[in-house]
């Protein structure tokens, strides 16, 4: 198998989806000749033309609304928000229209659209170009939320998302774009709502989201030298959430650490923690449920401050070590 980057995997998913289904179209800012702000759509306009790869002016509300309407009318549009932060300008179209219309209209319509949202810090882009906002959308019935952590998942989850009949918020992490892994050339899907056991371990369950999966893997390499074996689970989709494997793991390890880059306060980690506490797995806990997440501040510009604002490998190592030593 060949190795390709996360960006290439996404592009391949878009290309193969568009080849297979003429109803798949792309709508976004600078996604045509320019190829998208992060290069995901490079070359697609040459293959499919400007009718299917639609460059828009800076109009997030209209472009997302266009995706929602096109989906209601029978197309399968994939919209791109250049930086996920800009989704604020399209919130009505996503939360009041895409999420609710099917329900409000008594299931008369389906809304098969995918909104791609590059997010995350680490690029020095500061407060308005660096947020992780995925959890906002978990709180909105009618949406699904997908958070691929590697190139293989990026392709399979994007193809599955495009085939799904619901509006999907597809959060890509900018620092993952250049990461590589083995990705099959043929088209494939990964079911939404199926978590991945990234690494087995017996001491601590680590639930890691998006870029935190690779950070947790790095932490595992350090911890293993100290005799601490962490088990890493990547939910891959926050909604639907495949929580059963998390419960099973907690029953096995008795300790759990949840890690995401999004702000910890009211973050998705709180939902996972609550579900564990709400389940029979609670009785198997040997320690408090621990969470690592972004600080309660806007993402700062300065590289040291920016790094400090979100969990790093050493934070995961520290927290896991404390859990292993019963220091909590």
């Amino acid at each position, binding site marked *: 198998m060949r190795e390709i980057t996360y960006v290439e995997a996404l592009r391949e998913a878009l290309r193969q989806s568009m080849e297979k289904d003429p109803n798949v*179209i792309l709508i976004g800012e600078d996604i045509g000749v320019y190829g998208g702000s992060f290069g995901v759509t490079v070359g697609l306009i040459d293959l499919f033309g400007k009718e299917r790869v639609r460059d828009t002016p800076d109009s997030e*509300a209209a472009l997302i609304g266009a995706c929602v309407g096109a989906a209601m009318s029978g197309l399968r549009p994939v919209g791109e928000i250049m930086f996920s932060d800009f989704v604020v300008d399209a919130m009505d179209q996503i939360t009041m*229209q895409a999420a609710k219309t*099917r329900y409000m209209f008594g*299931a008369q319509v389906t809304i098969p659209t995918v909104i791609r949202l590059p997010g995350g810090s680490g690029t020095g882009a500061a407060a308005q170009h660096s947020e992780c906002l995925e959890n906002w959308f978990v709180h909105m*019935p009618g949406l*699904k939320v997908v958070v691929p952590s590697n190139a293989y998942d990026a392709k399979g989850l994007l193809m599955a998302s495009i085939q799904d009949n619901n509006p999907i918020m597809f959060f890509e992490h900018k620092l993952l774009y250049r990461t590589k892994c083995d990705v099959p050339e043929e088209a494939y899907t990964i079911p939404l709502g199926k978590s991945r056991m990234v690494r087995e371990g017996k001491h601590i369950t680590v639930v890691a989201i998006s870029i935190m999966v690779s950070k947790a893997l790095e932490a595992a390499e350090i911890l293993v030298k100290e005799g601490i074996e962490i088990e890493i689970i990547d939910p891959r989709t926050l909604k639907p959430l495949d929580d059963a494997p998390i419960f099973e793991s907690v029953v096995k390890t008795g300790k759990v650490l949840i890690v995401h880059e999004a702000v910890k306060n009211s973050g998705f980690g709180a939902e996972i923690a609550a579900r564990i506490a709400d389940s029979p797995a609670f009785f198997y806990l040997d320690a408090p449920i621990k969470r690592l997440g972004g600080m309660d501040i806007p993402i700062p510009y300065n590289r040291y401050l920016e790094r400090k604002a979100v969990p790093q490998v050493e934070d995961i190592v520290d927290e896991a070590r404390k859990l292993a030593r019963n220091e909590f």
Partner: protein
Amino acid sequence: MSSEKAVKKQTKLDEVMTRDEALHWLKIMLLGRAFEENAEELYNLGKTHGTMHLSIGQEAVAVGIRSALKSTDYFFNTHRGHTHFLAWGGELNGLMAEFMGKATGVCHGRGGSMHIADIKKNIIGSNGILGSSTALSLGYGINVQLKKTEQLILVIFGDGGANEGVVHESMNLAAIWKLPIIFFCENNSFAMSMRFKDAVAIKAISERACAYGMPGITVDGNDVLAINKAVKDAADFVRAGKGPYLVEAITYRVRGHSRSDRQNYRTREEVKEWISKEKDPIYRFAKLLNLSDEDVEKFGKEAKLEIKKALEFAENSPEPSIENIEEGTYA
């Protein structure tokens, strides 16, 4: 591309539609009126819960639009859309049952007065977020353009919705892509309590059309024929692939914004003037048909009878089942 231009030359009825067609539209106006008067009554009797937005006195807009378009065209409604729904061919029973929140409602009791759609009839639904449908209409426009079906999309918003930012984005996008969309501003002179003249610094919303490179026109919103002609002109332009068109119809919201409106921003005299037979769109249209007041009242009674039957249907319909409360959230 004149924007303020009103239709000066009076259009004659027989230039636009046959007498039978005109009678059909008059009856639809009366049916809409009867539906809404009944809705008010049901609310006052405590037989329905939730709010509603009434378009009494604005019925000419609904039939003026519908009579100018084809049933294969797509229609995006506003939150003040009962009569529009009926004009577009939506089933009265389904509308009434939806209003009553029943399982037999067109949206299975999920939407209510503010969210009524009949997708099979190309009534893409009313929207509780002002101006928002303009963005959704773009997607239908893209589909029609890709599939070259010669359909068009008419999307309505009010003078209130006109000031939402998304309308600006949508008109611009429709214009650069030459999408087959008629943007229709049903200007009923009030955005809740704010008068139109206090909400904008221009004379008419249609003046904005030139900012997007599309034609715009303002017509008398209580004149069925004027609206019909404007929409037909717009439809010819749009179907020819020339891009979107903005039509504005000036009318007057006779009732309050919603059920909770205290209406302390206008006088009773002002409202009285608009419900006079000289200004009431139903009587104005009936006059063109040479019908007497008695004729109108007779048709009005027939409409009320239809409403009564629909109400019986709705009242005898079951409530939606609690077990299926989640149905429709996800596909």
